[in-house]
């Protein structure tokens, strides 16, 4: 995959030249085109006191760069409050960045007219975390799926029927007629999530943004839903951004993992490289904390960094992880923001340990 990220700081130029890691996109597409690029994205929210006095900013996304090629799959991993949802919503065009931009197929989102924005929303599907909360309880499955088509101006009844048939077959909700007239509460969690995916797919998007799509589901269904997303990705050459806090599911899904901490990307690598050899101390802690089922877990304590993620109103100076970091270098980590180092080809870590 050809993508470039760097956690950019003010003053230190460090856009890293793309290393020759090769592409992971299929043979039909020798030179994958960039579908989406996020450039030096800063999304800050102003805090106000008494409704009008400026009281600082929540620096939810602070200098994020990456490119996503057509048909590529990336996983963004981070804890709640690290800015991953803000990043996603900015990509969906729901938040305006205060600096930097999101470019989709060569066009800057902030320059789109209202009409173009509507067309853009047809090209980007969104799979929510909680399927039950995401589906209107008073609508039947058929209405839920017709809605996006009506909004984007597809009026032909026959086409509605045809598309609904196709998409429900694809998400394996068969026999279709059994489901069309059901309300969301009549479906199981897995089925609800399939409907959410079907709704995201019905306008034939180029990109799917999935925000923790399986975290609310039972273990036995999770894998099924992930497989489904994977299949859709391959058959439609869809690009997918999979956002999660769970490293163990991301590995079955994406080509690359981006690790986010306190509004910044701290590490990026191909999935297996990251799991085999996590470089950033934060990634190492995440891996340590994620258990595999093993009886020995009950016999030992986990070695974890102290404290909690910082407030994004007043994040720590320089490296945002340094107050919790076991490998902190005094006079460096707390003074200067680490640029993006590339200790091995394709493996980026924003950490002074790799200087």
């Amino acid at each position, binding site marked *: 995959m050809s993508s470039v990220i760097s956690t950019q700081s003010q003053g230190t130029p460090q856009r890293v030249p793309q290393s020759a890691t090769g592409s992971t996109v299929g043979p039909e597409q020798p030179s994958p085109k960039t579908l989406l690029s996020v450039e030096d994205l800063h999304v800050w929210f102003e805090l106000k006191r008494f409704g009008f006095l400026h009281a600082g900013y929540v620096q939810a996304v602070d200098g994020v760069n990456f490119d996503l090629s057509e048909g590529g799959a990336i996983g963004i991993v981070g804890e709640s409050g690290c800015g991953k949802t803000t990043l996603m919503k900015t990509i969906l065009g729901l938040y305006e960045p205060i600096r930097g931009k999101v470019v989709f197929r060569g066009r800057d989102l902030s320059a789109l007219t209202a009409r173009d924005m509507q067309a853009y929303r047809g090209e980007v599907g969104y799979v929510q975390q909680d399927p039950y909360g995401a589906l209107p309880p008073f609508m039947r499955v058929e209405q839920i799926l017709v809605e996006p088509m009506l909004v984007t101006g597809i009026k032909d009844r026959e086409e509605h029927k045809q598309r609904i048939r196709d998409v429900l077959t694809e998400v394996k909700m068969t026999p279709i007629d059994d489901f069309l007239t059901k309300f969301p509460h009549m479906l199981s969690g897995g089925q609800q999530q399939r409907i959410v995916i079907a709704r995201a797919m019905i306008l034939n998007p180029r990109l799917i943004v999935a925000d923790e799509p399986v975290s609310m589901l039972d*273990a036995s269904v*999770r894998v*099924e839903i992930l497989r489904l997303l994977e299949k859709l990705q391959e058959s439609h050459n869809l690009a997918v951004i999979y956002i999660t806090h769970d490293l163990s599911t991301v590995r079955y899904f994406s080509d690359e993992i981006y690790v986010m901490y306190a509004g910044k990307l701290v590490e990026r690598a191909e999935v297996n490289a990251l799991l085999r050899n996590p470089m950033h101390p934060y990634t190492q802690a995440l891996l340590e904390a994620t258990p595999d089922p093993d009886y020995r877990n*009950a016999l030992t*304590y986990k070695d974890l960094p102290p404290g909690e993620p910082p407030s994004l109103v007043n994040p720590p100076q320089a490296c945002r992880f340094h107050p919790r970091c076991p490998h902190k270098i005094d006079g460096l980590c707390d003074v200067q923001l680490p640029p993006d180092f590339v200790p091995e080809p394709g493996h980026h870590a924003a950490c002074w340990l790799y200087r």
Partner: protein
Amino acid sequence: MSEANLLLRVEDLRLYFRTRRGIVQAVDGVNLKLPSNEAMVILGESGCGKTSLSRAILRLLPNNVATYTGKIYLNGHNTMELNDESYRRQIRWFEMSMVPQAAMNALNPVMKVGDQVAEPLLVHKRVEKAEALEQAAWMFEQVGVPIDFLNRYAFELSGGMRQRVALAMALITLPSLVFLDEPTSALDVLTQANIFNVLKDIKRELAVSFILITHDIATSSELADTVAVMYAGEIVEVSDARHFFTEPLHPYSRLLMDSVPRLKVEQEPTFITGQPPSLISPPSGCRFAPRCPSAMQRCSDAPPTFQKDGRQVRCWLYA
């Protein structure tokens, strides 16, 4: 497991609910044994009756109960013989307490968390307020909450801290058994791992027993001494953790184990086809048979519980 140090013994516990569509057999003939200072995990998917089971043991019942029978021995005494008032005075929060699901979001928003943690002592043990607060401070220390948080409100605390406060509240009366219903499902991985470190500490320091109710197999292994797998209102397997996590017996347990995405081992997860049966009219015979890859003729009869190497499994494969 000698009978002498048994803390909890549940025999043929049944809890059915009346609904408009019929009787829901949420807990259907459950037998369990828990020695003191051990942690048992009750594993199961949503709707299998695991929360109902914990509520049946704690007698926290809604008002549409159709059947509530069985025996619950706590330290050798059958608590089912007590009336509601003496149960409330003698058992609930004295001997057994609970951290309900999403407890961290159920803290009182207009009460300082310290007062809230001290409250069970005031209500159940009639302790003086000052002493109760002192106890609360001590308990905060045990669960890893800074003592100056006593005077804060719930909204000032992070999710992990609120979960610890909920835990402190369940522990403040020093019960011998604490139910934890999905204690970490809404938390981040690092916070989750931290909470389990705290639980391990508490189990060792305060000699508390835990019953952990969860659907998350990977994190359940952080605390489990024994594992009970529940499916459609019944316990289908009870094993010690060591054997369960290396080689589960029941076909359902095996499939469940195979569905866990692994981080450190190369292993493709699989999923279980089909859906659990409705608890209104569960299939006669083995309830897992319609989804079971090793189903055979015999499975149309309900399997009894078989013993195998000290483990219990409800499957004809072990006849």
